[in-house]
């Protein structure tokens, strides 16, 4: 008599084939030098997956973190979870349609993505934009910048475990979305700029709400910033974390507030002026420390400068048309144009090639968040896992722009 055999996990016929491991298979085939270095684990090291759906990754960023105990040894960001192929879509849309295609890239500050596109098309077509339209563009874009920085303030604090600041910053941001909603008809993806101007003139609701908001925003901002700037836990966690020096920042092609926090006064609005920025009076705040706290404080300084610009725009707003007269079907001469705008996150540039038809032949979109995310593997080694959040939040990436 034989005993019945019971299924055993050691039975080779029951083993799950390893070649069909899931998408989170931790160790892929190393294809490059960097991957071979990253996946060679030393004694005591292990790989940890963060994201892509983690609340502190600001979207769908996935990071493979190599840790030794609580310390991060190396880090490899994995992108593409939000990739929509916007550049290919732009090649198959006509020049007016492109504006709505680029809108959702930096979805927190979509007026700047529109501005980048229309600025390069205007260069291709040699269009002169009416002065009133330029002032309206500056006015609405600076409002958008304040909204974006306010959200950053809240998010940064939220990632560090503080719940209150995001409620305060959303009070401001909500009002700005309402104001821009009155102007553009949309609250998030505005689709407001047009080639040669903007979609509509200033209206009464916009002006009255803006005037009301401008009269009280200064005091409210001071109160909201005091909440964080004087918070010892926040300041001590952010200070000295993720330091970038001037040379590294330039070598890594960093731009915007992250570069200015490292002491380089590079701002496209002054370095390569566009629109009516040369006529406006504002400062470029810089800081020398280059850490997460400096990047945070610098953005708060920029909010004050943006409010100065908004104030000047309202006082100097000229009369006239808000859009140049252009045919509905645009066929620029064959040629190339490059334009860059200073978005809240840095240099946002567009390179467009025309072949004489009504659709761009090639539309290249350069998003600052994409470049800034390269800093994370550079800054992380040696820090603790909770500091990943401080560094990623401090660089302020928007995954819509990173993944395109």
């Amino acid at each position, binding site marked *: 008599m034989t005993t019945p055999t019971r299924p055993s996990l050691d039975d080779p016929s029951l083993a799950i084939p390893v070649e069909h491991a899931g998408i989170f298979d931790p160790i892929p085939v190393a294809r490059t030098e960097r991957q071979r270095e990253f996946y060679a684990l030393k004694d005591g090291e292990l790989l940890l997956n963060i994201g892509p759906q983690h609340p502190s990754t600001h979207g769908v960023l996935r990071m493979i973190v190599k840790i030794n105990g609580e310390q991060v040894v190396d880090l490899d960001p994995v992108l593409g979870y939000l990739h929509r192929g916007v550049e*290919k879509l732009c090649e198959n849309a006509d020049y007016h349609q492109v504006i709505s295609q680029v809108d959702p890239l930096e979805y927190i500050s979509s007026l700047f993505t529109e501005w980048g596109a229309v600025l390069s098309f205007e260069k291709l077509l040699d269009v002169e934009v009416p002065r009133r339209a330029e002032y309206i563009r500056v006015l609405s874009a600076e409002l958008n910048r304040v909204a974006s920085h306010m959200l950053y303030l809240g998010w940064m604090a939220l990632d560090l475990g503080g719940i209150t600041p995001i409620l305060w910053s959303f009070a401001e941001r909500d009002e700005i979305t309402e104001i821009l909603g009155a102007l553009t008809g949309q609250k998030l993806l505005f689709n407001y700029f047009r080639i040669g101007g903007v979609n509509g003139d200033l209206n009464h609701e916009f002006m009255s709400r803006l005037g009301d908001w401008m009269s009280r925003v200064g005091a409210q901002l001071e109160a909201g910033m005091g909440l964080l700037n004087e918070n010892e836990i926040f300041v001590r966690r952010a200070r000295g974390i993720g330091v970038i020096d001037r040379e590294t920042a330039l*070598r*890594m*092609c960093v731009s915007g507030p992250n570069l200015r926090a490292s002491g380089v006064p*590079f701002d496209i609005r002054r370095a390569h002026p566009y629109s009516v920025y040369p006529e406006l009076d504002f400062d470029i705040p810089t800081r020398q420390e280059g850490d997460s706290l400096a990047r945070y404080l610098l953005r708060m300084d920029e909010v004050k400068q943006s409010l100065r610009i908004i104030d000047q725009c309202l006082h100097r707003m000229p009369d006239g048309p808000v859009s140049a007269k252009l045919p509905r079907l645009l066929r620029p001469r064959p040629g*190339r144009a490059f334009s860059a705008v200073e978005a809240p996150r840095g240099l946002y540039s567009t390179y467009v090639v025309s072949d*004489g038809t009504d659709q761009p*032949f*090639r539309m290249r979109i350069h998003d600052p968040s994409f470049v800034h995310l390269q800093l994370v593997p550079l800054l992380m080694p040696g820090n603790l896992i909770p500091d990943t959040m401080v560094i990623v939040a401090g660089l302020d990436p928007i995954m819509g722009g990173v*993944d395109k």
Partner: protein
Amino acid sequence: MDRAFKALLERTLGTSLEGPVRQRQDQTEIRIRPGDVPQVMRTLHDEPDLRFEYLADLAGVDTGTTFQVVYHLWSEVTPDWLRIIADGIPREEPRVPSLTFLWKGAEWMEREAYDMFGLVFEGNRDLRRIYLPDDFGSFPLRKDFHLADDAAKSPGGGVRPMERATAPADADATTLRRTSPGT
């Protein structure tokens, strides 16, 4: 347009330039051979009267016949954007020297160009796909990669038909575009 800058470029780069220095609006454009990229960039970056310290953009372009890599640089010595086109990269052997020795930040931009065009940047130590999965079989921004028929049509109806989903087997990339891109 910065005329003095044009003369300075011609003087400094000399034989590296392919064709004339072109200027339009706020952009100055030069063309170079792909093999000259490291040397030209090194000159532009290090030369004390040029000082192009900032790389603003790196883009791949498919002209339908060959590939280009287009760099945009910024310097405080000129009010213009400097555009450098590494021209005439063959489709069969799309190899360009990497720029990561000078700007480490170009690494991901080159990965993106590799992902979208299949351009191989020699010297980039992490050249793999960045947006698309590793087993993705083609390079979507090439002109011979066709979108499906039901993509949004141009309201200019009839100006140029959409790229077809299934091109005839004998069609090459250039026939899908009637006109050539700007020169």
